[in-house]
């Protein structure tokens, strides 16, 4: 299992800040697809991903117990 943290408005869409899901040995892209389908999250392809507080890309492989944060970039100023 891995922990997924939802930042900003993603937290509201999912209805909670953190979920624990299957994902060991998956890559980030696969996790994003699964999460998008399960929680009806749109636009995850342009959301930044941190694995254990380090930048990760779609090819990053996850391990048991990892914490994955999805962080949507914003453009206002």
């Amino acid at each position: 299992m891995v922990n997924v943290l939802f930042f900003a408005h993603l937290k509201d869409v999912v209805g909670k800040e953190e979920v624990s899901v299957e994902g060991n040995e998956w890559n980030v892209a696969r996790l994003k697809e699964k999460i998008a389908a399960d929680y009806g999250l749109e636009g995850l392809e342009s959301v930044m991903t941190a694995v254990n507080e380090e930048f990760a890309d779609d090819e990053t492989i996850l391990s048991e117990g990892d914490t994955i944060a999805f962080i949507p970039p914003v453009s206002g100023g």
Partner: protein
Amino acid sequence: MSERYSRQTLFSPIGEEGQKKISSKHVLLIGAGALGSANAEFLTRAGIGKLTIVDRDYVEESNLQRQQLYTEKDVLEKLPKAEAAKRHCQDINGEVEVEAIIMDGTALSLEPLFAGVSLVIDATDNFETRMVINDLSQKHRIPWIYGACVGSVGMSFTIIPGVTPCLNCLLRSIPIQGMTCDTGGIIFPAVQMVVAHQAADALKILVEDYDAVRPGFSTFDLWRNQYQTMKVGRAKKSDCLSCGEAPTYPFLTLENATKTTVLCGRDTVQVRPPAPRKLQLEKLGSDLGGSGFTVKSNPFLLSVEKDGERMVIFSDGRALIHGTKDMVHAKVLYQRILG
């Protein structure tokens, strides 16, 4: 140094030496909205040698809720923001040289301003201009500090050429269809929190304490009580076209810029994004409807209206801005909605 900076020089990582450095440096601040006005005030109070402020907009009533420096009088006078910021900064600190430049920041117009500056601070409201700043920063080897906010959310990241990854490494492409301050709103504390991060790193760079620069990408949400700094060492790509081994600076080319054209014989400007986008018109329409726009739609386009300004948006990202021939104003309206 005068008594004015005594509490700043007492802070030992700055000291008298650091204050001398600050007073000899030149910062380019791009944008004079919420992040821009607060950064301008900070740099002025800190005693920067020279400050150049670039902005294309003028002060409006809806700015006052979150944009420092500006007053009701500036709204009545419809002062350009860069000029209004300059005037207030000079009341605060007459020792600082402030240059106000009223223009739309593009690859072409911004490049000459990078000459001789020590640092560029991002206070823009869209990713297109940020990607231009990112390329110019790499080309001219000048650090810049990204900052952005919407709602109660904000983020900041400091890019030092040759040391950190660049914004292009992190984002790969311009993110599509995010919330903007005109669609998701914005609260003042989110602005202040971003500026606190930008300002602290600006001081470190100005006093040349590079080891202290925040080594990651910070994100927060002040309403949902979230905070994280993501390490970015692994994000640096040797094949990045902006900061890699063979850079081409893709965002400095005309094909990567948003185009505006006045439509012949009509009081309308067409805005065209660099590459066709795939907008989800239905979602955009309902977001904008929730944000106070009057929205009409069919499967091919959205017609949105607010405060007497009307815009038609197509799913490829093209838009027609009605009732104006001013290309910069049209681009402002477009980017306020589409980021």
